[in-house]
């Protein structure tokens, strides 16, 4: 354990982070919002990182244009940049340009925020939960199992799905926490393994009579009962393209609850203390075994909720890929949001917008939607290495993120 930070308490434990002189715009932000935080690392770096990532993605679109390489002329270069420009425009209009676009952004944001919170709470306790994907699958499958068997009024059935998904994901996450606490098995390895196990388990479950609709041979489940589906918030408009559902409300409530747990409750203090220095927490009388297990169980429960949002809010049935990589996006998202619930919500809206806009981009400009994974990866690189941002934009940034996780050996 030589990589433990020594000496000073972490910024968030000091209360306000930046007590020195603030530049004009930072002071302005303080006045505007009434809170005193380190705006440079909280806002400036993420915004610049996003800008840099979008700029690089434009270059990727241009450089990957086969027509440009075939003709190699100025006009072809113009065409490529034109395509890149309209792709960026489609990203914007597809995510914010209409009621349907905004609602689609919000519908995508719901599971992203929930999964992002799952990873973020792990980071706060010094645990790296790569297993959100598997926990989503397990939580989602519990929601499916309940949804296809139970048909009670919606105000009972939806909470039932929520609780069931939290238990399913919570158990899957709790296994990794318990293993870490009792045997020292590193949570990165166990959660990666549990992801693969969950993936195979879903394929198997979807081939059983319980889940599979009669006459189907492919791995897919029956549709869940209408009463189990998350109600559409703008259902009264009666438009099928306005998809925003109760999931976003669940996500925002969860974000506030996590904020409260982390920063206002005793157990949240203990989570952060164990993340800051597990040895100190142990000598301070905290039960590290219990804390690791409960953090991972809570983390898994949040991911399970994300799986529920995916099933009960959007798809209404399970197929092997229903987690759709959200559990991995959640890692980028938690880093972008600085593992703070408010940051995660903001980042969740951004990634939801990217997903919604990405679909529009592929339809309108033929630029494949997979570009958004590239954008998200680039964002994280820039966030995690502010030195790159400093070099590109010539601005001062906050501290490096440094080591969020521990190596296998500890």
């Amino acid at each position, binding site marked *: 354990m030589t990589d433990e930070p020594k000496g000073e308490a972490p910024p968030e434990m000091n209360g306000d982070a930046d007590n020195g002189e603030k530049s004009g715009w930072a002071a302005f932000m303080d006045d505007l919002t009434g809170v005193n935080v380190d705006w440079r690392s909280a806002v400036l770096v993420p915004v610049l990182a996003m800008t840099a990532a979008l700029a690089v993605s434009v270059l990727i679109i241009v450089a990957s244009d086969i027509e440009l390489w075939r003709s190699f002329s100025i006009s072809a270069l113009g065409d490529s940049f034109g395509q890149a420009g309209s792709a960026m425009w489609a990203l914007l209009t597809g995510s914010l340009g209409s009621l349907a676009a905004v609602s689609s952004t919000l519908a995508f944001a719901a599971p992203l925020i929930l999964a992002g919170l799952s990873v973020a709470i792990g980071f706060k306790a010094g645990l790296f939960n790569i297993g959100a994907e598997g926990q989503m699958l397990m939580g989602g499958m519990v929601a499916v199992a309940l949804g296809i068997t139970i048909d009670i009024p919606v105000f009972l059935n939806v909470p039932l799905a929520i609780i069931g998904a939290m238990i399913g994901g919570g158990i899957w996450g709790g296994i990794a926490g318990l293993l870490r606490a009792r045997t020292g098995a590193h949570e990165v390895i166990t959660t990666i393994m549990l992801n693969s196990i969950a993936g195979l388990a879903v*394929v198997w479950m979807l081939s059983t009579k319980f889940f599979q609709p009669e006459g189907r041979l492919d791995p897919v489940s029956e549709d869940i009962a209408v009463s189990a589906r998350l109600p559409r918030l703008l259902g009264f408009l009666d438009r099928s393209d306005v998809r925003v559902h109760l999931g976003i409300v669940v996500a925002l409530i969860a974000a506030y609850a996590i904020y409260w747990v982390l920063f206002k409750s005793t157990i949240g203090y203990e989570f952060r203390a164990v993340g800051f220095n597990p040895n100190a927490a142990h000598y301070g009388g905290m039960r590290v075994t219990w804390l690791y297990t409960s953090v991972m169980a809570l983390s898994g429960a949040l991911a399970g909720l994300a799986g529920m949002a995916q099933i009960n809010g959007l798809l209404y049935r399970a197929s092997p890929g229903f987690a759709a990589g959200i559990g991995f996006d959640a890692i980028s998202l938690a880093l972008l949001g600085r593992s703070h619930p408010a940051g995660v919500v903001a980042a969740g809206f951004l990634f939801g917008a990217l997903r919604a806009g990405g679909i529009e981009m592929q339809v309108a400009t033929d630029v494949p939607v997979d570009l958004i994974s590239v954008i998200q990866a680039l964002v994280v690189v820039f966030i995690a290495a502010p030195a790159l941002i400093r070099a590109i934009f010539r601005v001062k940034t906050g501290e490096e993120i440094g080591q969020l996780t521990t190596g296998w050996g500890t």
Partner: protein
Amino acid sequence: MTTKTVALDEGVVRTPAEIKRSRYLGITYLLLAAIVLFFFWRWSGDLGNFTFKLARPLDPSAPDLTLSASRTTMIVAVVLAGLGGFQLAKGFGKFNNMVLGFGIFLFIFAFLGWATAQSSLGAFSMVGMMKATIVRSVPITLGALAGVMSERVAVINIAIEGQLLAGAFVAVVVASPLATADDSLFLGAPLGSWIGVGAAILAGMLLAWVLAVLAIRYIVDQIIVGVVITIFVGGMTAFLALRWLADNPQLNQAPIFKSIGLPGLSSIPFLGPVLFDHNIFVFGAFILVAALTFLLFRTRWGLRARAVGEHPGAADTLGVNVYRTRYLNVIIGGAVAGFGGAFFTLGSVGRFDENMTNGRGFIGLAAMIFGRWHPVGAMAAGLVFGFADAMSQTLGILQTGIPSEFLGMTPFIATIFVVAGVVGKARPPAADGQPYIKQ
């Protein structure tokens, strides 16, 4: 870990943890014996004979192995019970793991015998399954080797998946336009395919260099870098596959490396086709295991590299350039992973599909841990995982009614057991994952 020890009457000293483990092992043997006895023999009734075919039509001829199902399972059950009894009474000492391996082998043999006897086919090609085991182990072994090279110098590499995927993509895109069918072959492939392999290796090295720069110079969390690289490559290859390959299928069809039978060795019955008749990727993996073992454990350079992984401060004091060693090893690892990536396209199907590595890189990571950060261990683990893969395919053919997904899970469950210390504790290099900041 407690140091309290208990002396046995023979004077052998065992820790309480070892005694506990010994007890678990003994109970495991007895359980396996019970399963064999109850499920395979008593419950299924007399199933008659089963046949393992040791040669396919064109292979060097070998007799079929035909045994009576009930007799085999009974013998296996008795032996397993005996092992369990001895383990509980005395223990096998330093042969524990070897005996465990033997016990598991017996169990699987009985299981396969039962599965074959109960199916309507009554026979299956053992040579085909063993060959598939070797082939399927190759990308896992190569991925694990990439991890070993990197983690031996204390840089965690969970970007293996990304490196494999990048290698797969680059190899096919470079090889497809360059290689034509009427080219002369060199070691099973035209020159263009070899250039594709070279490009894949370069791609792996480039990603490894990015990992090294971010982890070593910018001191970004290594696990996060690994995840990000994997996400980046996944997105980028899918993006380019749609943008380039969808409309240009001629860019996505490369000749596949042909098998080379080693003269003499490949005509040995059974072993010949299983071990000595493969394409260059399989032989390459074997050679790399040997070469990297020699490099890491028999050369001065390897000793220094391992010192950097265990105690970089001490290595630095003795004049080893920690940063250069780390860069070099991580990039060598990237080259190995890039080569392994090329296997997916040029060594196997000849075309790229989105996310075609399908988690093999993560299994490689597991194999590295399972193999205790040693190249030979990595290969052994790769073979175990390859066997699980090949066997789930076989069971699908034999229609045992056991979901193949369960068998597919075994590598992952086994890895969890290993990291949890149930089957002996795997110890990573001491400084693994910690950045080194020169004082």
